[in-house]
């Protein structure tokens, strides 16, 4: 667009122009506040954005390394920008401000006349002036571009990296390096980690835990020089104590400086230590210019390096612009409370964490074994002033909201862990109505409680949509938030039902419902949610609780979804599909011919599936036993395409044929498929085995994937294709065959035991407390002492496995149910009809198009 070109429709030209410089988190929040104030209709709004992409969630930057894509990090809604007619210029920073003429000039040469100018330029990482700081392999950690550059460089050039700075951002950066699989050092000048947030005790607890996770931490040490190789790339780092660290990459994360150069150049007042000086309305020394976020020095003289105060400034500035001189919004300072999960460790600090107030006392609790440290700062009159929590931040939401008041129980009780001494019976009920529950959006307990559900709270108040640290507390404040029940029939979760079935050896759904169901559901019919879920629990525990493993016997038959009931997959016209098991995807020509012959004889549509096997579609109920009789005869078994059970273990051709293969991936895939076939689980299970790191079998997209190494196998878990793809995480390396199988046994049984209904391993791994580390503790290091039991359960499964189709065919009573009509066993369903397409059949749909039930999910 031509500079100064009008944007709005010619008949209603907005009178005024507002220019925003910087489209970071605070800039975007400011635009939303403008829209809320109705200013986007009265103003032409132009945004100059230096980065090549619109605002994204910088706070979550590190989640890129656990799979969040740059797109997923975005906090900018294109529809919002368009709807409000905002002109957003990407990759075009402001370079010059002429306050007299009231214009801003951008790098591309745009000159924009403004009535109001808002600066939200954020900060720039501070790089200490050490020799070698500009060498190839030196980075900062602030933007998505930084992250992409670090990733690209690390892949080619580094196995070890160092982070300069052990503060919040340094630990974030260290998390990123670990996520890239690099050996990671942290060098911190101060005597403890996170010096700005935690005290010595907290720093010590943090240090212990992080060292335990494989990080090398060097505190009380400065960085003296970056040493380079002949090509000028980083090869090592010299520390102030003379030590040399061999590293291929360095990330500087030694703090940030406000980006106030533009303001300085045009003569706006700036603080002594940087930051554009603003008043309580966020106005700079020029009343037409505002500054918000990390680039501003607030009226209280501080520069806030956190997002919540920035959001508050954004709101304040928008309100001030809207109401002119009668503005009553003011930003007078903010709480520096933070709650973070850094490298898997929870850290929180709130209020006066360092005990700066006069006459204050502190109460602390430390448990070095578990890496927990808690300190509360209390005023002389008992008022809670602030605190630090490391390792266990459970109480953060409540404590933060209580800051400034006298807690209803003595402070020492608040730091003791649950179960030690008197219970710290301090629930969210204790909070006053005006306690601020969500700091990011300044939302009180009363405002939260005016809503009924979390989605409603997020929509109406925005609480919980910032850093997310208050979501847990919000959940506790909402009605029936305690109800985690499986469905209207059971108040327990699937995991709890699993434990009830296992320990009380309950093999009957009715018994479970009548004894353990909700009062109102006892004696009833149950429902379509809990019936299959309980059937699956009973089936996966069958040998251990003395139930019949055959899923169609007795009461079990009535619980199964239709697919399990007919041992085939229901299709849209009422016909079924048939998927024989082809372990590892390996099949002899003779067996292939049998499949072809069966398909031809019954006129079935035939397709190679995405799971390395063959699906035969269009069978009517009464044809299923006839089809399977032929397949079983030729040595096929059920492929369990219908069950929440093991699907396939895909393989690549591997060492036997492939010039790159280092192990026999086909044999391992077949072994694994035969071991786990028929295993019932909360959701389907998929696996694959690749013969080398080229990964032709796509094992890292599987629930458990195996990749060959020169000396054995690497086991990855929690992968998923489908709607929410996730790459699997490495659980253990270089395993022998026996070690591999043992670990998978434990992993699968632990998942079956603790996952929710219809929760794939990927979602489960993300949900459970402690995530992958916890799972590794349990299944590799046996931290719960249950591995023997998990292995025994799997051994039971393996010995009791029987082919469901083989069993069904052998029993005339079971076969009797495979009819379309109970009163006309010979008649086919007249509504199941087909028409030809590309030389095969397709359903001739009776008439209607399928319209999914809202909230229903594919089974």
């Amino acid at each position, binding site marked *: 667009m031509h500079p100064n070109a009008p944007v709005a429709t010619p008949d209603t030209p907005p009178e005024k122009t507002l220019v925003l410089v910087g489209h970071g988190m605070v800039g975007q929040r400011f635009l939303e506040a403008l829209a809320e104030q109705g200013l986007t209709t009265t103003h032409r709004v132009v945004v100059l954005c230096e980065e090549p992409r619109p605002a994204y969630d910088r706070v979550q930057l590190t989640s890129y390394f656990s799979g969040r894509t740059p797109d997923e990090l975005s906090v900018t809604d294109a529809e919002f920008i368009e709807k409000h007619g905002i002109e957003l210029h990407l990759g075009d920073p402001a370079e010059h401000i002429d306050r007299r003429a009231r214009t801003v000039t951008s790098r591309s040469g745009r000159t924009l006349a403004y009535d109001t100018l808002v600066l939200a330029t954020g900060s720039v990482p501070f790089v200490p002036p050490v020799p070698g700081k500009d060498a190839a392999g030196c980075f900062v950690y602030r933007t998505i571009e930084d992250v992409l550059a670090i990733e690209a460089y690390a892949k080619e050039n580094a196995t070890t990296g160092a982070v300069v700075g052990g503060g919040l951002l340094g630990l974030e950066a260290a998390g990123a390096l670990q996520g890239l699989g690099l050996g990671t050092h942290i060098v911190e000048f101060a005597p403890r980690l996170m010096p700005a947030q935690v005290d010595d005790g907290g720093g010590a607890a943090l240090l212990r835990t992080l060292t335990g996770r494989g990080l090398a931490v060097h505190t009380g040490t400065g960085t003296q020089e970056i040493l380079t190789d002949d090509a000028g790339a980083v090869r090592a780092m010299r520390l102030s104590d003379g030590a040399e660290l061999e590293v291929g990459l360095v990330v500087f994360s030694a703090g940030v400086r406000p980006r106030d150069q533009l303001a300085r150049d045009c003569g706006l007042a700036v603080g002594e230590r940087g930051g554009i000086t603003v008043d309580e309305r966020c106005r700079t020394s020029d009343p037409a210019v505002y500054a918000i976020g990390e680039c501003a020095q607030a009226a209280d003289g501080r520069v806030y390096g956190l997002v919540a105060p920035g959001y508050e400034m954004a709101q304040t500035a928008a309100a001030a612009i809207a109401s002119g001189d009668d503005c009553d919004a003011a930003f007078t300072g903010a709480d520096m409370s933070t709650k973070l999960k850094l490298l898997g460790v929870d850290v929180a600090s709130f209020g006066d964490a360092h005990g700066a107030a006069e006459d204050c006392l502190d109460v602390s609790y430390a448990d070095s074994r578990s890496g927990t440290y808690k300190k509360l700062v209390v005023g002389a009159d008992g008022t809670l002033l602030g605190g630090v929590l490391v390792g266990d931040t459970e109480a953060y939401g409540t404590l933060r909201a209580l800051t400034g008041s006298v807690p209803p129980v003595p402070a020492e009780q608040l730091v003791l862990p649950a179960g030690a001494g008197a219970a710290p019976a301090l629930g969210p009920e204790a909070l006053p109505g005006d306690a601020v529950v969500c700091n990011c959006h300044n939302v009180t307990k009363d405002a939260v409680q005016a809503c009924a559900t979390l989605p409603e709270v997020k929509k109406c108040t925005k609480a919980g949509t910032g850093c997310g640290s208050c979501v847990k507390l919000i959940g506790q404040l909402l009605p029936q938030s305690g109800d985690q029940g499986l469905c209207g029939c059971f108040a327990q979760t699937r995991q709890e039902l699993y434990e009830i079935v296992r320990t009380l050896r309950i093999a009957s759904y009715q018994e479970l419902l009548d004894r353990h169901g909700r009062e109102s559901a006892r004696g009833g019919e149950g429902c379509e949610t809990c019936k299959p879920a309980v059937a699956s629990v009973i089936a996966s525990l069958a040998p251990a609780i003395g139930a019949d493993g055959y899923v169609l016997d*007795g*009461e079990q038959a009535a619980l199964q979804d*239709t697919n399990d009931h007919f041992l085939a997959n229901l299709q*849209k016209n*009422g016909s079924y599909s048939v998927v024989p098991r082809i372990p590892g995807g390996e099949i002899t020509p003779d067996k292939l011919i049998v499949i072809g012959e069966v398909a031809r004889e019954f006129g079935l549509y035939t397709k190679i599936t995405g799971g390395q096997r063959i699906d035969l579609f269009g069978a009517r109920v009464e044809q299923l036993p006839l089809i399977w009789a032929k397949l079983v005869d030729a040595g096929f078994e059920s492929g369990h395409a219908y069950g929440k059970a093991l699907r396939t273990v895909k393989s690549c051709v591997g060492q036997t044929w492939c010039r790159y293969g280092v192990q026999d991936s086909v044999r391992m895939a077949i072994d694994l498929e035969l071991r786990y076939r028929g295993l019932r689980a909360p959701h389907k299970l998929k696996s694959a085995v690749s013969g080398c790191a080229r990964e032709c079998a796509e094992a890292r997209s599987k629930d458990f994937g195996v990749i060959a190494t020169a000396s054995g196998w690497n086991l990855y878990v929690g992968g998923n294709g489908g709607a929410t793809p996730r790459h699997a995480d490495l659980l253990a390396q270089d395993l022998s065959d026996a070690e591999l199988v043992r670990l998978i046994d434990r992993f699968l049984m632990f998942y079956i035991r603790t996952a929710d209904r219809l929760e794939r391993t990927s979602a489960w791994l993300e949900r459970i407390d402690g995530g992958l580390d916890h799972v590794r503790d349990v299944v590799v290091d046996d931290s719960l002492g249950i591995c023997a039991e998990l292995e025994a359960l799997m051994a039971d499964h393996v010995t009791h496995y029987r082919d469901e189709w083989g069993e069904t065919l052998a029993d005339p009573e079971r076969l009797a149910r495979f009819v379309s009509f*109970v009163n006309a066993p010979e008649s086919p*369903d007249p509504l199941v009809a087909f028409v030809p397409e590309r030389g095969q059949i397709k359903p001739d749909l009776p008439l209607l198009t*399928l319209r999914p039930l809202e909230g229903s999910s594919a089974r």
Partner: protein
Amino acid sequence: MTTMTTMTDTSTAADAPAPAATTDGSVQLRLDGTWLTVCAAARLTPGRGVAVLLPDGRRQAALFLDRAGRLYAIDNRDPFSGAAVLSRGLVGSADGRPFVASPLLKQRFDLETGRCLDDDEAGVGVYEARVSA
């Protein structure tokens, strides 16, 4: 509308309702004022349905037995998909009323009235059913 009957309870639960012995008798559906015999009562499993082909050779009913031994019959055709599959859905109860959930896209139908619980505008026909000695 429905007639009480008792069925062998196949569950092994210690305190599940005592299995009564009446597996004989046959199930009948009422069609145009006459009773059509469809199958032996023993063919039904509590909590599961079967499909019945009606004499015109096209229409179908879905017949269900609940755990208390009550019979229900509704039209077998799922109005959302057009496929004749309701007999293959799972039976449940909500607020004490029995329903079947379509096996295709899970909409629920009240077994006594045929009303769809998830869409006010949809529903299926119902039939009277009984066990005759």
